[in-house]
């Protein structure tokens, strides 16, 4: 019997197949289907720092607009006793999911600055989340802000969230830090239980007909995985925190690679959005078949086997890979 179990953030998981924050985890019904298809854990969609204040302010504007201006219409909407807001909906989704799901449920908060919204982490904990993934998606546009300031800001944020909660915290990073190992170590010291490599950088598109900039969402592609594997392989062994791989995991082979470079789990979303939830069943069966064919007994057995510290030649992780790649390209060209 092949053992697929793994641990992530102190949680025992039946396999490394985790569904990442995505529209798939927006409804409890869909999460139940994911669980049935083999998901070992799910990460709920992110609730955004901005969303909390934006919603609050938007509601305030909507209810105030045009009021008390004219004798016949002092208001335009009925006054409710209370208004369910984004966070209320989030918490009730979390509670409902927890009440029916047999697998761990991770909440996700997306923010880049310390603020009142951080206290929301406590409510997430109280609503029963097994862990919290903190998505620190910072986009510096101000030339006066240094890289160090951004890193310090995120570390402060992590500390603040930790102060408000006792559940495990994972931090999802962007790959755009000058020294990922250094920054990961800082976060590790701040007490995080997991590091998620990486979130995806959504670039807006440019509409040349209408002269406007439009948001654009694209699904991940398998080739994005290599960046994640590269850094996981380097970080593996140096951190107390668990490593999760997300972005570009599209097949059983990708899952195997994720584990072999040192990941505790491999997170998926795009592949399931593309091919449907049953794809998860296929990935798991292929995973088992591969392990069977290659006579692996457990996931644990292979973890980190291809990490930087486990391979004979570390040059591919360093400048050597760069040189090699370029020269092989040149060779191909001349041939």
């Amino acid at each position, binding site marked *: 019997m092949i053992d697929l179990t793994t641990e992530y953030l102190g949680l025992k998981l039946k396999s490394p197949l985790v569904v990442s924050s995505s529209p798939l985890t927006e409804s409890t019904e869909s999460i139940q289907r994911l669980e049935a298809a083999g998901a070992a854990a799910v990460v709920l969609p992110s609730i955004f720092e901005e969303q*909390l*204040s*934006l*919603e*609050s*302010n938007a*509601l*305030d*504007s*909507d*209810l*105030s*607009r*045009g*009021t*008390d*201006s*004219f*004798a*016949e*219409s*002092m*208001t*335009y*909407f*009925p*006054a*409710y*006793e*209370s*208004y*369910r*807001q984004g966070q209320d*909906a989030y918490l009730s989704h979390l509670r409902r999911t927890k009440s029916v799901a047999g697998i761990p449920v991770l909440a996700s908060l997306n923010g880049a600055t310390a603020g*009142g919204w951080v206290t929301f982490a406590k409510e997430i904990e109280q609503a029963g989340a097994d862990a919290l993934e903190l998505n620190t998606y910072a986009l510096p546009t101000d030339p006066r802000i240094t890289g160090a300031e951004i890193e310090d800001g995120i570390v402060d944020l992590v500390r603040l969230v930790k102060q408000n909660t006792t559940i495990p915290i994972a931090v999802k990073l962007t790959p755009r830090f000058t020294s990922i190992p250094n920054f990961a170590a800082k976060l590790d010291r701040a007490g995080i239980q997991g590091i998620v490599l990486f979130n995806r950088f959504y670039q807006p598109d440019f509409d040349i007909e209408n*002269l*406007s*900039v439009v948001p654009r969402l694209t699904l991940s592609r398998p080739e994005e995985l290599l960046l994640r594997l590269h850094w996981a392989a380097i970080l593996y062994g140096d951190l107390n925190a668990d490593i999760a791989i997300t972005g570009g995991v599209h097949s059983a082979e990708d899952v195997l690679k994720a584990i072999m470079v040192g990941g505790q789990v491999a997170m998926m979303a795009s592949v399931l959005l593309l091919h449907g939830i049953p794809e998860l069943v296929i990935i798991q069966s292929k995973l088992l078949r591969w392990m069977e064919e290659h006579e692996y007994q457990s996931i644990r057995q292979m973890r980190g086997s291809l990490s930087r510290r486990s391979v004979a030649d570390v040059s591919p992780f360093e400048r050597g890979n760069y040189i090699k790649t370029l020269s092989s390209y040149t060779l191909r060209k001349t041939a």
Partner: protein
Amino acid sequence: MSEQETAILDGNESCARVAYRLSQVITIYPITPSSTMAEWADQWQSEGRKNIWGTVPVVAEMQSEGGAAGAMHGALQAGAFSTTFTASQGLLLMIPNMFKIAGELTSNVIHVTARAVATHALSIFGDHSDIMACRSTGYAMLSSASVQEAADLALVSHVATLESRVPFLHFFDGFRTSHEVNKALTISDETINAMLDEKHVLAHRQRALSSDNPILRGSAQNPDVFFQARETCTPFYLACPTIVQDAMDRFAAETGRAYHLFDYVGAPDADRVVVLMGSAAGAVEETIEHLNAQGEKIGLLKVRLYRPFASEAFLAALPRTVKSIAVLDRCKEPTGLGEPLYQDVITAFSEAFSSGTSPIAVQPRIIGGRYGLSSKEFTPAMAKGVFDELKKPQLKNRFTIGINDDVTHSSLDYHPEFSTEDPKTVRALFYGLGADGTVGANKNSIKIIGSETPNFAQGYFVYDSRKSGSVTTSHLRFGPNPIRSTYLISNANFVACHQFSFLERMDILEHAAPGAVFLLNSPYGPEEIWNHLPKTTQETILKKKLQFYVIDGYTVARETGMGNRLNTIMQTCFFAISGVLPSDEAIAQIKKSIKKTYGKRGDAVVQKNFAAVDAAVAALHKVTLPEKATATFDLLPMLPKEAPAFVYNVLGMMAAGKGDQLPVSALPAGGTFPTGTAKWEKRNIAQTIPVWDKDLCIQCGKCVLVCPHAVIRAKVYDSSLLANAPETFKSAKPKWKGMDQELYTLQVAPEDCTGCSLCVEICPAKSKSEAKHKAINMELQAPLRAPEALNWSFFESIPTVNRDRLSHTQVKDIQLLEPLFEFSGACSGCGETPYIKLLTQLFGDRLYIANATGCSSIYGGNLPTTPYTKNGSGRGPTWSNSLFEDNAEFGFGMRLALDQQKEYADDLLKRLAPTVGDDLVTAILTASQSKECEIEAQRKRVLTLRSKLAGVDSLEARALLTVADSLVRKSVWVLGGDGWAYDIGFGGLDHVLGSGKNVKVLVLDTETYSNTGGQMSKSTPRGAVAKFAEGGKPNSKKDIAMEAVAYGSVYVARVAMGSSDMQTVKAFQEAEAYDGPALILAYSHCIAHGYDLTYGMDQQKNAVLSGYWPLMRYNPMLRTEGKNPFQLDSKAPSIPLKEYAYHEARYTMLTRSRPEVAKHLLQEAQDDVERTWRVYSGRAAMAGRSETPHIAPPEREGAVAPLGAGGGDE
């Protein structure tokens, strides 16, 4: 005695809290000022609040007040306790049912916020003309005079009706009581239960119709018995006053608050007494206390139970010593021997003296007078004027008080400076702008002071009649004694001006008391402010020795994320310097109240308000006053001196808030006013205005088309005109064929713009080097005001382009057609007004408008000014409003009259042919007038006719001169909102559409009763939240387009300017061209949809893209050509409904309250879209008559085939 809690509430809530608990079926319909009671009932129902019998009442909105009364009548007959809330025209619509309900001796209470009935004008304000119109219905009438009484006497009414079987009309003064916020004791369930006698409750149910014990009620009777049967009710009416007094006595035992059928206050040995009912009692009572303390002997008899009028109780309540009586009526009955209450009093005395039963030995002198019509102020000074009159040897009867009647000299003199204000009461006046939160903040302050301190508190709020940039005045009183001052503050200890711009034209400090505190929101700090104040203001500050404070509230608001909302900031300043509460305590209370008010809107809102409180204290500065006034400028007149005399002298006074000072002679008898007056009011309400980039502009005209306020205009003109142009006047080469030798200018009226920025949003021309820069861009108004005002003035002097040169179906050309609807006071960014403006651009010079009551009648016809105007020839839309319910019929009548006049004129013309010449007669009678140039030619012929007739001395010639204009084609357009078209006026609309007459109908469809604050209509879409549809409207919107299409003979179009301006223009043109009825349903974005109206046109586009609002035209003319008349002008849905709907709070609110319901309704609404699309696209795809073989069965041999038989669907 039951335990009683105090609450801060207004009269409407006070009354509704009682009525709700004593009802099982509540039928409602919105009408100001009663709508709030219905809104409360609807809200409590949706929250599951129970009545006294433990069930949740059913609250049902009907299609009209007539419907509400009918449904209530039915509910009563079937045994339920049923009520309704209404006022004014609404109450009038209930009268037929009221006769029935009373005739059937049915226990029922109608709660009425007494309001003026429309006569020479509509008025939403309070008086007793609606109540008086119901005198003969058989309803008992009980009057409440305060917020407290609105609850107390509501309960007495409900109890007394059950015992007496006489239905009750319980009323209190619209606005003065219905909207006054005061501290009142609430009535507990225990009190209600103690007051109710179970046996009467059971008896009411037992009288109900029942198939288990069948009865017949409502028979028709003949002369033999009707009379006798009518008399059977008499004993019930005779018993009624005793029952009411008994209920009042039991109420007193329960609550300690004693009432009588007539309550006398004042000197027990008074020689002069005023008799009145309603809120004015407060002002009179204050006057009496004040004057009696000075040795006078006067009194007031407050009428509680007006009907049945209990003469004995009335006479018994008067002091025996009374020598003269003034009866004050809050209404006018022009044909009577005096107003109703006066006549009742006279009758009571006359009967008592003739029967020898008068308790008063000597017949007092009795006069009657009118006061307070349409919420006209009634002050202690006026009350004193009446008491003073009663001293005179000769009394003026049928007097008026509070106005200057210089026509029939009915008015009494009084000294306005007389005041009875309690010195312990703090009086505060706040001048704010509608959108800045001033009123909300003041309501909040009253709550804080009224509930957190032992003080009493009162708030009353006055609004002007504009929906954008309106001035709000808050009148607040606080003090240790109960506050019953039912009049505005004229001697304030505290005056706050929340908008610096008000100082330019308004004498803000007119009502400041000596030594008062003056708080000003000013962009100028304590050091510089003095030099920015007008001379009058400076002088008043010095003369009255005011304590002057400034705060830059808008900067604080901006920095703390409050945007344009000053509420928290100015409220903090008020507490910081008024001394009503210790500062620290006040700030703690403000924060507590912020948490309570905004907590449910989320933490971010709470936090920004907290930040605003803290920042406000830091930014508040006291101004050190200089020795003397140094200003070199003074207050500007409200309207410019160049305005016509009537506009300047009369409308100008109204605009300046001094309309109260106008004498009777200043006002036109019959209520006729000139048009073209809005242009004189330069309101300067925009912070930013659009600025034209002439090089980037493609001259498409879209900005001109969508501008709701007609402040962006375009002209093409001869370049020689530019010689005298101001320095910054811009022009460009016109992008029209054949006009390239001329010049084009797009000009903004800087002082009329409301800053909505719809124009910028719609502008398609972006800079190639900086995408955010368009051909039109918003910039700060202040620095542009002076130069652009000059430019505007110059622009106005340029002649408009000859209409013949333009295509009236092209948006690009339409921008050059002069709008005859400009600068309305509609909401900034209004979605309705662009359609009306377009209508006036296309057909304005021959336009008759029948306007249903609603937003469009308010921004169209609420004084002081009107946006409807005239062109250079003096022609323009002529406009009138009849009622809410009858508008289609009203327009239909106009059409009939015009047709009749035309026929008469034709006939006269023929008869006068020998005089005016056969050629002219023939030319006039046979003229085609389908094109504008043909209409213009006909006008010229009529001009010739007029000149020929001028010297003819015959009856026929004179008669023809009065109707000659009818020989030129006229257009009758019926305008109104969806509340009118879908609900209250639908029967009439349907009839008029079915009449085949040439009447055009433009429905400005906002999908809600916008004017009364967003109540559900049958146009409200499924899933949208509205008042009366708290839980989201469960049913789909009614498709009146297809209902009209069903006639086959009605031109029908659904348009949305933001989606296709071309289609809109086409529909208007086709509707006008069709010689028959037409219906255009115009999607109108609205403030009641809950989003920033800047994006209104974008939302219109989304409405069409989602398929929610398919664009269609049904043109019966096409049928005669054998084509399918049904044309679909928009494409199949390309975005889900959610992508349109969820931009609007009316939809998203439901996701915040009932997410599961929201999801379900969204799904159903999406299904509606698809269902509609299938129907519309199917209809559009049908073959026309000429394209289809015969469908009808073959004719039997020998039968004659009717013309046009066979063919397809059409």
